[in-house]
């Protein structure tokens, strides 16, 4: 594993030790769950709109404009609480196959979102009100659904391996 010394140092840091051996760990974990339900739930609403399944009386751009800020806010909370748990046993998590899979899926979800924003969403004006969204938007929505489902699964699985 690269940067082994850094991860060991991070784990040994008094703050990490304090979180790991106090009520902070379960507290951060429960905050993490609240945050991810909001991340996944709000993404689900946008995905279902992109797939042409739900929320069709609103345009896709309205949906993304109004929901994305909440997704990002919840994501930041999930990231901070997740890092707080990660530091308590950093080297162990990095060698955990479920955690590794989760990181890969998170990366893929980011790529999927970036591609959608930079490419498909650019000409949103052409398909904004149409219930039948273009194939590229449907693919992005379906991929996002699967990826976030996988992120939940591998995240939950991480705790079963440690």
């Amino acid at each position: 594993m690269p940067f082994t010394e850094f991860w060991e140092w991070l784990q040994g840091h008094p703050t990490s030790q304090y979180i790991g051996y106090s009520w902070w760990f379960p507290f951060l974990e429960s905050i993490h769950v609240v945050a991810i339900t909001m991340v996944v739930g709000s993404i689900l609403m946008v995905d279902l709109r992109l797939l042409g399944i739900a929320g069709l009386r609103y345009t896709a751009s309205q949906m993304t404009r109004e929901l994305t800020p909440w997704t990002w806010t919840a994501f930041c909370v999930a990231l901070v609480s997740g890092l707080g748990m990660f530091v308590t046993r950093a080297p162990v998590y990095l060698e955990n196959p479920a955690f590794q899979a989760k990181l890969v899926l998170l990366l893929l979800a980011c790529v999927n979102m970036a591609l959608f924003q930079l490419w498909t969403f650019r000409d949103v004006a052409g398909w904004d009100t149409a219930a039948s969204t273009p194939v590229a938007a449907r693919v992005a929505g379906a991929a996002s659904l699967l990826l976030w489902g996988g992120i939940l699964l591998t995240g939950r699985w991480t705790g079963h391996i440690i």
Partner: protein
Amino acid sequence: MVTSFSTLMDLHERLANALSDSQAQELARYLLGNVPGLPPVVQTLHIVGISVVMASIVMIDLRLLGMAVPSQSISEMISRLMPWTWWALPLNAVTGLLFIFARPNRYFYNPVFGIKLSLLVAAVTLAAVVYQLNRRETGYWEQTLARRISGRAIAGCSLVLWIGVVMAGRWIAYWDYLFY
């Protein structure tokens, strides 16, 4: 009050006893122990259900509080999103019950589980009130000042209750941490 509380405790004990060493427990234990990956998969389905409930209800609550999705109408949001919640809650009940059947004593003698259920009952009741009144009269929560204010109060309580339900759910596994 004291008698009703002790009756409730009796109910807990009786449920725990009825499930212990029952065939339901045997089946749940067999499935969770022998189907590879079943516990995390079922837990993930539970979290997916919670995500549907949380996003739907939190977004409606934030809309009632005037904090989110300004372009969507309150009554339209309630009638569009709440049915998703009514489908997700049974999914959560089924996935949750599998774990309760497998280890009834872990849940029925756990005060955090009792807290979670109480908060859940209150939260679902509020959601049902919001849904039913809006169904009986479209635009119910937008019409008078008194209704708008009570809608905000309900939304605030609902937010706190649902966050409490989810956090308590996670703390069930840590309850000995809390009390010992």
